[in-house]
């Protein structure tokens, strides 16, 4: 695999990896460095990658594993563990308050989900990854991803319905 091939088939996935890596590491600055490191790793393995049947999948898997390694080593400081779900600034105060409340409720709901379900759910619904991409990153079959996703979505709906019917009752 030469440089041009590498750029086209592997490096061009950097933008695609960005949400995943940012969410895992908790900040976009960390994410850019990490993607750089991931690409260096992949570049070193480029001869092997050239014959890989699923290059995109391999890149996703490498990226996720690299993030897990980084988190294990904690070579960098996490600014704030809640960074991935930091509320965006808004001009309207009322909407902002409502949003904060909603954000808090959903955070709680997500916390209750099993780790794997939560990861798949966030990767799909928020980050918008394809089933195949999630499957290769997590080393699972697409069918398993669908099942995990289905469970998580149903669970979230049930939880949200509970909270909202309760809230409506109090008004």
């Amino acid at each position, binding site marked *: 695999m030469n440089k041009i091939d590498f*750029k086209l088939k592997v*490096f*061009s996935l*950097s*933008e695609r990896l*960005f*949400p995943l890596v*940012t*969410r895992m590491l908790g900040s*976009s600055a960390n994410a*850019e460095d990490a*993607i*750089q490191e991931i*690409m*260096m790793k992949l*570049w070193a393995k480029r001869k092997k990658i050239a014959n890989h049947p699923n290059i995109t999948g391999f890149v996703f898997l490498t990226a996720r594993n690299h993030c897990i390694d980084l988190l294990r080593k904690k070579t960098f400081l996490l600014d704030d563990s809640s960074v*991935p*779900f930091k*509320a*965006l600034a808004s001009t309207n105060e009322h909407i902002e308050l409502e*949003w904060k409340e*909603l*954000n808090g409720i*959903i955070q709680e709901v997500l916390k209750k989900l099993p780790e794997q379900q939560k990861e798949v759910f966030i990767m*799909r*619904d*928020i*980050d*918008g990854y*394809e089933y195949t991409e999630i499957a290769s990153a997590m080393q699972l079959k697409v069918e398993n*991803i*669908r*099942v*995990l*996703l*289905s469970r998580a*979505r*149903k669970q*979230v*709906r049930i939880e*949200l*319905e509970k909270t*909202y019917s309760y809230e409506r009752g109090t008004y």
Partner: protein
Amino acid sequence: MKEEHIKTLIEKYEAGTSTLEEEQFLFENAEISEATMQVWGTFVERNKIAVPNNLNTTLWDSFQKKKNRTRSVKIGMMSAAASVLLLISLFIYNPEQKKLSYNEKEILLNEALNMIADTAQIKAKQRIIYEGDLITIYSSNE
């Protein structure tokens, strides 16, 4: 019609069989009747991570710089390793031959002399060619 469509989409969504486009449509178009979907849609929209503009290009530029740097570091390491290796090999393979001490040389020399001592005497013997009253002619290899 639209409500019907959204309902089937939600069913697909909860079964984990919807496409990304369908999900996008759901998040954006959920009606009040699907309050939870609307809530979730808002959450999704506000938590999306924006990818910086031209990320691929900027990353590629710094990637190439880094790659070149590591290459020059590699070359540096290799040359350092090579010079160390050269020094070590010179140290192990000493080009100076083993030298004998004077004592050893003397012993060896004497031994050699002893070996040829007898023959030397024979050779040193004079072979008389002519012997007269006044003169004796002999050959010698001395």
